[in-house]
């Protein structure tokens, strides 16, 4: 059974210009212990998807799905309290700007302590105190912070970005979650810090047997340990499947463009040659194209594309396109 099973998740909200469908029938499956990367440009709805899973969406928005299952249990049918119990026990999330996501007026130790489950520490008051302190130190070691004494007493404003992100990872893994959602954890970080955090996430996924849903903006920053990739554009799923297959033989023009953009960004280009990118810009919520939302920007689009394509499968990948690329020669 899949740990997380999402089928046709749709989120609609009432904007100033009428009803907008910000997520359009998105499906995603996540197995236990799997590292999954969700790639999409800003505004594609990847954070919304994460929030819908965690259950912290604006209550005024309409969330419908054929299936939003966690371990076989329907998340949408639960009361907020049941939902919070699952979120607090089995899921965790880390964010892009770690310094803003840590409480500025509590020390690191206080914040990690809060996340340690009550059942983990037992005994008398003093015992619990000491236990908690050891647990916090352990957690800090586990995320690669050696001088735990100094860090424990620090306030978030005293930390560097990399250390702050490690602390938020420590908070996230304190209750041994089954799923860690990392929402652009390394965007806007120095390359060396970025590398550290990425390796740490990959290592933790293996050592804790934890699924990781990594949300990134480009194909280049997906984790080395990623087993499966999904690409999201304007709230529509474009393609998902095995990392190897997707990167080598993309079926969807969007995937193809994303790979070319990120891989050729560092390649030497002819003078005055055009940068490899899709023409046009991401449409605004007000002017969402009908059918396949990539249509107006897609170099391969034809008349048919005004109808939303159904899912098609090809070996290890699934895609939503009328005119796939890299078809195997038959």
């Amino acid at each position, binding site marked *: 059974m899949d740990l997380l099973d999402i089928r046709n998740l749709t989120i609609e909200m009432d904007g100033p210009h009428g009803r907008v469908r910000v997520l359009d029938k998105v499906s995603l499956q996540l197995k236990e212990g799997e590292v999954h990367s969700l790639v999409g440009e800003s505004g594609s709805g990847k954070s919304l998807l994460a*929030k819908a899973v*965690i259950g*912290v969406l604006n209550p005024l928005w309409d969330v419908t799905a054929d299936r939003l299952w966690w371990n076989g249990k329907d998340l949408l049918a639960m009361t907020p*309290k049941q939902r*919070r*119990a*699952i*979120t*607090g*026990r089995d*899921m*965790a*999330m880390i*964010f892009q*700007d770690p310094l*803003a*996501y*840590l*409480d*500025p*007026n*509590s020390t690191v130790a206080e914040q990690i302590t*809060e*996340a340690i489950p009550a059942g983990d520490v037992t005994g008398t008051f003093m015992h619990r105190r000491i236990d908690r302190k050891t647990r916090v130190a352990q957690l800090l070691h586990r995320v690669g912070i050696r001088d735990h004494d100094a860090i424990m007493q620090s*306030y978030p*404003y005293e930390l560097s970005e990399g250390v702050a992100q490690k602390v*938020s990872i420590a*908070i996230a893994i304190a209750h041994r979650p089954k799923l860690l959602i990392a929402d652009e954890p390394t965007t806007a970080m120095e390359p060396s810090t970025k590398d550290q955090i990425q390796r740490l996430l990959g290592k933790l996924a293996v050592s804790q047997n934890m699924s990781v849903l990594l949300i990134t903006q480009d194909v280049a920053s997906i984790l080395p340990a990623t087993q499966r990739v999904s690409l999201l554009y304007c709230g529509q799923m474009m393609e998902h499947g095995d990392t190897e297959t997707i990167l080598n033989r993309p079926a969807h023009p969007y995937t193809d463009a994303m790979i070319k953009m990120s891989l050729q960004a560092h390649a030497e280009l002819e003078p005055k040659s055009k940068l490899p990118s899709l023409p046009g810009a991401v449409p605004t919520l007000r002017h969402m194209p009908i059918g396949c939302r990539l249509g107006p920007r897609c170099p391969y689009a034809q008349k048919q594309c005004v109808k939303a394509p159904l899912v098609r499968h090809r070996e290890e990948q699934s895609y939503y396109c009328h005119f796939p690329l890299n078809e195997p020669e038959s």
Partner: protein
Amino acid sequence: MTRYLMTRLFYFFLALLVLSVVTFALNWLFPGDPLTNMSGIREGQAAYEVTLTSRSFDSTIIQQYLNYLEHIVRLDWGVSLSTGTDVWQDAATYLVVSAELLLLSFLVAVVIGMPLGMLAANYFRHNIDKFILTSAMTGYSIPVFWLAQLLILLFAVQIEWLPITGQINPLYAIDSITGSVIIDILLSDSQYKLAALQDAILHLVLPVLTLSSLPSMLLLRITRNQTIEVLQKPYVKAARARGLSQQRLLFRHALPNVLQDVLPQMTFIFGLMMANLVIVEHIFNWPGAGAWLLKAIIERDYPIIQMVLFTLMALILVLNLLVEVYRGWRFPMTREERYGGY
């Protein structure tokens, strides 16, 4: 922290010094002859020339100010012009009476204002929020002197639940020892202690209610706005994503961060209450420092005016210092913001 503390203390004493200059200058700024203002002796009287030299009135103004400062430090505020008694001796009871009223009202304001503010913020834009905010706006716009009259008319005259003015029914014959009527009753050996206490509390209701109305509504609005702002902050979202309940979010994560910005506003509100204290004490015939000050102003009893003004303002400064020190200790980020280090 040491550096922060030293800076705060430095500003505190600087402010006290400026304050002493202001009270010193009162004699000169008010209409009339400064010496008469100071001592009550009129020009042409026999003692005038003697006082002129004995009070070193003929020396430079700097010298006079230094003399004045020396007297302040020794708590020697001179004698009252109308009664001839030592000002500092009289002040003790008056100040305690006012302190009782002020502290109780402040407590009521905090107890009413902050929880309601957080409640409104929790139900931001819901009907509960709108109801609380509208009531707060109404309470906020009513002038204190008018509200006092209305409350007296309603509770004391129409339905006769509460007494109109005064601290306590004089028939209980409670001796004034400290000035605070509640402490006095507890210290006294009257056989009607409980009844006296009940009577004193009934007497306190209207003044406290009047005095706390404006600060509580102000506090409500400040707390509400601050809480709404804090609840939008990423770290609250992160805490929510950790599956914490709304109560825990509010009290464990939002409240400290709200306090950080509401605390400094509290001293400001306390200053506002001082201004209203004079009005409330006058209306309710409350024997406190405010009423005393008003009487002194009418009688042009300058030593008392100087003393009460200085003490009340110094009290605000002390409160401000305490709040700043607490804030710097509890919220280390604030001292970082201000002085770039600790």
